[in-house]
C-alpha cells in the first residue's frame, strides 16, 4: 500500500517538452510510472518518446491543454515542470481538468500566486502537493516528481519532508540500513503549499502498510508544532522527527521562504520541544533516523 499514488496512478506531465519536464518524464517512465499524457501548448498531436523499465519504447501523446489530455487519456494526476511565472496557471488548469492530485515541482512561484491557487484547488477538492517540492514516490509502484528512484526501497516507513535533498539524504540512509518506505512525500518548503504535514500523517495513519513515519521539518512557521499536536491527538503509529535550521540566525532567509524565523515563532528549539511533548522521537542528526525508526518498527 501507499498514500496518494500507487500502480494505478495515471500521470499527465505539464511542460513535458521542456528541459526539466522531458528529463524527469523519462526518469518517471523508466521507474515504471504510468505517464499517459504530456501537455505543451502548440505541440498537441506530437509524441514524446521514452523507455519503459523493460526497455520498451513508450510513446506518450502530447496535448495542447490539460483538459484535452485528461479527456483523451483519463489521467488522474498531474505533475508540473513549467517556469515559475506560469506555474500558478498550470496548477489551476490541472485542478479544473478533473485530476485528483496535482504535483507542482516548479521552484520560485510567487507567494501571492499561491494565495489564489490555494482556495482554487480546495474548492475543487483537488490535492495539491507543492509548489517547490520534489514530488512523491511509492517505491515499486509509482514516482511522480523528481525523487531519485534508486535511493528508495519498498518497506513500511512513511516519509514526509519539507525539503528536497534532505529527504533524499534520509531516505538514502534508511534504504542503506535496510529500512524500506511505503511512500516518500516532499511537501515543499514554500510558505504556502497545498499539502501539509497533517494531511500526510493522516494518510499514513490510514495506510495499513505504513508502520512508522519519518518527518523532516525546518525552522519557520508553525506547521511542525501543529503536526505535533495532531500526532498527540490522532496518531497511533510512531513518528520520528527532525528539524533543520538550528544554526540559522533569526530573521535571515535560508534559500527558500520556508526558512524565516519570524519573531519567537518557528525556532528549531520550539519545534523540537513540541515533538518531544507529543512523544515524537527526535533525530538530532540525520543518521539518528536509522536507529530511532528501527527501534519503532520492532
Amino acid at each position, binding site marked *: 500500500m501507499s498514500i496518494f499514488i500507487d500502480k494505478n496512478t495515471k500521470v499527465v506531465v505539464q511542460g513535458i517538452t521542456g528541459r*526539466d519536464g522531458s528529463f524527469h518524464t523519462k526518469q518517471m517512465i523508466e521507474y515504471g510510472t504510468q505517464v499517459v499524457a504530456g501537455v505543451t501548448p502548440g505541440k498537441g498531436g506530437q509524441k514524446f518518446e521514452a523507455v519503459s523499465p523493460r526497455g520498451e519504447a513508450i510513446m506518450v501523446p502530447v496535448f495542447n491543454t490539460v483538459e484535452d489530455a485528461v479527456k483523451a487519456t483519463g489521467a488522474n494526476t498531474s505533475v508540473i515542470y513549467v517556469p*515559475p*511565472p506560469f506555474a500558478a496557471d498550470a496548477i489551476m488548469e490541472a485542478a479544473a481538468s478533473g485530476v485528483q492530485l496535482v504535483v507542482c515541482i516548479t*521552484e*520560485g*512561484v*510567487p*507567494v*501571492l500566486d*499561491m*494565495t*489564489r491557487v*490555494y*482556495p482554487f484547488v480546495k474548492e475543487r477538492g483537488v490535492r495539491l502537493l507543492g509548489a517547490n517540492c*520534489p514530488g512523491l514516490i511509492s517505491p515499486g509502484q509509482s514516482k511522480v516528481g*523528481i*525523487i*531519485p528512484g534508486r*535511493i528508495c526501497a519498498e518497506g513500511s516507513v512513511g516519509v514526509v*519532508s*519539507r*525539503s*528536497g*535533498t*534532505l*529527504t*533524499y*539524504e534520509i531516505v*538514502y540512509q534508511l534504504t542503506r540500513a535496510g529500512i524500506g518506505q511505503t511512500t516518500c512525500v516532499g511537501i515543499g*518548503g514554500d*510558505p*504556502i503549499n497545498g499539502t501539509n504535514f497533517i494531511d500526510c500523517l493522516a494518510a499514513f495513519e490510514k495506510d495499513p502498510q505504513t508502520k512508522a513515519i519519518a518527518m*523532516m521539518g*525546518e*525552522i*519557520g*512557521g*508553525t*506547521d511542525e508544532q501543529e503536526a505535533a499536536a495532531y500526532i498527540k491527538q490522532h496518531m497511533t503509529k510512531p513518528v520520528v522527527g*527532525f528539524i*533543520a*535550521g*538550528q*544554526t*540559522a*540566525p533569526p530573521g*535571515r*532567509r*535560508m*534559500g*527558500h*521562504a*520556508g*526558512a524565516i524565523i519570524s*519573531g519567537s515563532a518557528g525556532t*528549531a528549539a520550539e519545534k523540537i520541544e513540541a515533538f518531544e511533548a507529543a512523544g515524537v522521537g527526535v533525530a*538530532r*542528526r*540525520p*543518521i539518528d533516523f536509522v536507529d530511532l525508526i528501527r527501534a519503532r518498527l520492532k
Partner: protein
Amino acid sequence: MNLHEYQAKEILRRFGVAIPPGEVATTPAQAEAIATKFGTAVMVKAQVHAGGRGKAGGVKFCKTPADAKEKAAAILGMKIKGLTVEKVLVTVAADIGSEAYVGIIVDRASKKPVFMVSAAGGIDIEEVAAKTPEKIRYHPVDVRYGLQTYEAMQLGFFLYSDVKLARAAAKVMQQLYAAFIASGCSLAEINPLVVTPQGEIIAVDGKMVIDDNELDRRPDIEALRDESSEEQSEVDARKHNLTFIKLEGNVGCVVNGAGLAMATMDLVKYYGGEPANFLDIGGSSNPEKVVNALRIITEDSNVKAILFNIFGGITRTDDVANGIVTATKANPLKVPLVIRLTGTNEELAMKILTDNGFTASKDMDEAVRHVVAIVKGEKAA
C-alpha cells in the same frame, strides 16, 4: 528584496496615500538644498536596510537648512548594523497628532495576506505584540475578493472612533492593499500613520519587502534594487544564482538544497564546529556555479576549512567534481577541503576527484566530523 523608505513611499504615493514631500540626498550640500527648497523644518533619515535607524542616530529633526546639512553630514557614512549609510531622505517634518500602525504580511497559517493594525503606532509592532497584544487587530484578506470596503471600515473604526478619520484610514488600507498586491510584496507597512493636528491622515514612514519570486515579472521593481546597501558577497552570489548568507563561523559550506544545507550546518555545530555561511548551489548542475561558490567562500578570511555536501538528484555530482577541479586549478585553495558526494553519476565524480588528487566520502556524518576535526586542529586535512 527590501525597498528603501523613499522607494516604498514613492509607490504608496502612486496609489494615493498622502505622504509629506521628500527627496533623496547623497551629500550634505544636497540635503541643505532640498531643505531650502521645502522652506520648512525637515527630517533627515538614513536610507539603509536595517531596523532601529532612530535609536542608532540615523533619523534627525532639523529646523534649518544649515541644520539639515550638518545632520546629513553626520548620518551619511554612518554604519547601522554593519551597513554604511549612502543616502538620506530629506522630508518635510510632519505635525503629529496621533500615531497608528498599519501593515500587511503574507501569513503562512491562514495562507492569506493579513492586515495588522494598531492605534499604538510609532514603535515596533513586535513590541506592541509582545506587550499589549490586545492593541493589535489582525485581519486576513481573501485575495479572491480583495479588501472589501466593509473590512477596511472595520479596521478604520478599530483605529479611530470618528467616522471621517475611520473613512480616511479605510481608504489608506485599500491603497496599501492595492500597492501590496500590485508590487508583489511579502510585507508592506506604514508606521506611523499619522493624524495631524489639522485632522489629515498621512504616512510618515513606509516599508516594503518584495517577494524575490515576483521580481522577474516586475522589472520596474527590480530596478529599485540598491546593491550598494546589501552585503557584497550576497549580491555576488545572487548574480551567479547561488543563495548565500554570511555567518560568523569558520567552516565554509557548499551544499545543494536549502534543507540539506541547514542540516549540514546543524551537524557542523553538533560536532562542535561553527558554520561560516549558508550556501545553496540549487538544483541545476553546472561546474561554473561551483567555481563561483568557492570564490565567494574563500573571500571570507575567517574560513579555515571548506565542506562540500552534495546529494545528487537533479544535480549531477560529476558537474560538481569538475567545478572543484577547475576552481582549484585556477586559484589553489589555501584551506583544506572535505568533500562528500553521492547520487547521480557518483562513480564518475569520484574518478574525476581521485584523478586530480582529491579524496571524497559518500557519508555525510563522516564528512562533517572530518571537517570539524580539521578546524579544531585535531586532524590534518
